[in-house]
C-alpha cells in the first residue's frame, strides 16, 4: 500500500511537471531533463512557411551546463523524414550535405542553425503548416536528453532577420 507521503510526492511531481511544461510554453524556452536547472536552452525555433512538402527548421541552442553537449536527433511529427544538413558555397556553387554524427554544442557556447548554413531539412511534410502556426518537435541531446520545442512558422524574411540579429547582436 502506498503511503500518503508517496502520493503527496507524486502529486507534487505532477504539479512540478505541469508547471515546467506551462513555463516552457509561455516563455518559448524549452527546459532540459532537469526541469529546475536546464542544461540547454533552445530559442528562436522557426520554420519558414514552406512552398512545397520540404521545409527548413532553424534554431539556436545555448549550453547552460558548462559542459557542452551534442545534438543527436531531431524528431518532427509532421515530417516523414528529418535530416541535419549544412549549406556551403564553393566556387560559385551552393552545396547541401547531410551532417553525420550529430552537432556539437560547445561548452558554455551556442549552436546556431541559420539560413544559408546549418539547418534541419524536413521532407514529406504533412499537413503543411501555415504562417503563424506552431509546430511541436523534440530535440534529442546526448546529455540533456529529450527537449520539447515549439517552432514558429514564419516568413523567409523573418527567418533571415533572426539570422542577422544573432550574427550582429
Amino acid at each position, binding site marked *: 500500500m502506498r503511503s500518503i507521503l508517496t502520493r503527496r510526492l507524486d502529486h507534487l511531481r505532477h504539479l512540478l511537471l505541469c508547471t515546467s511544461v506551462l513555463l516552457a510554453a509561455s516563455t518559448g524556452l524549452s527546459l532540459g531533463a532537469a526541469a529546475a536547472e536546464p542544461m540547454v536552452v533552445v530559442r528562436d525555433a522557426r520554420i*519558414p512557411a514552406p512552398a512545397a512538402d520540404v521545409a527548413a527548421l532553424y534554431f539556436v541552442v545555448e549550453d547552460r551546463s558548462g559542459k557542452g553537449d551534442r545534438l543527436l536527433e531531431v524528431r518532427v511529427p509532421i515530417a516523414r*523524414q528529418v535530416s541535419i544538413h549544412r549549406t556551403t*558555397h564553393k566556387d560559385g556553387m551552393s*552545396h547541401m*550535405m*547531410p551532417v553525420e554524427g550529430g552537432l556539437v554544442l560547445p561548452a558554455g557556447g551556442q549552436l546556431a542553425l541559420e539560413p*544559408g548554413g546549418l539547418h534541419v531539412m524536413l521532407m514529406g511534410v504533412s499537413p503543411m503548416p501555415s504562417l503563424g502556426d506552431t509546430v511541436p518537435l523534440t530535440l534529442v541531446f546526448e546529455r540533456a536528453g529529450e527537449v520539447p520545442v515549439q517552432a514558429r512558422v514564419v*516568413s523567409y*524574411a523573418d527567418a533571415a532577420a533572426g539570422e542577422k540579429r544573432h550574427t550582429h547582436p
Partner: protein
Amino acid sequence: MPRSFVSLLLLLAAALGLACDAGGAGQSGGESAAQATARRLGLHGTALAASLPRPHFVLTDTAGHAFDFHARTQGRLTLLYFGYTNCPDICPLQLSHLAAALDKLPKLRDQIDVVFVGVDAARDTPKRVRSWLDHFDPNFYGLTGTDLALQRAQLAASVPTASVEARFKGGYTVSHAGWVLVVTPDDQLRLRYQSSVGSDEWAHDLPILLKEKWPG
C-alpha cells in the same frame, strides 16, 4: 563526335571562362570599367569583369510550352536563377528576397522579369515548379527541361552545372549555381548576386539596374 566528349569540351570551356573571370576580379588595381561602375553605383552584386551576351537557351515553362529565354526576355531587366524545388534553404530564401524587393517597387514591377530554372529534372516538374513559385510570386517564370536541355541552359548562362550531390534516406540534395544572374535591358549579363543579398539591397539596386547605361 560522341556527345559526352562535346559536353566535356563545353565544360572545360566554361571552367576556363570562370577561372579567367575570377582572375580578373581578383587582380589588385585590375578593376574593369564595369566593376568600377558597379562600385560607384553602390550595387550589391559582383560585376563580371567582362559582360556576356544575353544567354540563348530553350526550356519548358510551367504551362508545358517551349520558352525561348533570349526571345522572351530581350530588352528587359532579367533576374535568372538556377535552383531546385526540393531545396529547403537557399533557393526559397533567394526567391523570397526577390519577391519582397519587387513588392517594394510596385511601379517598376512590370519592367522586371524573374526567371527560375529548376535543375532537378526528375523532381522539378512544371506543375511542381508552378505551385512552388506561386508561393513567392505568381509572376515569376518557371522553367524546367530534360537533363540535356538543362545542361545546355547552364552552359549558355556560364554557370557551373548542377549535379546530384548527396543521397540519403528519403531523398537527395543537388548542388547548383549559388548566384542570381542579372541581365540588364541592353541584353548583357553583367552581374551576379549571392544569396546573402537581402530584399532591401535588391530594392536599392533594381531601379539602378533598370536605367543605368553601362560602359562598353
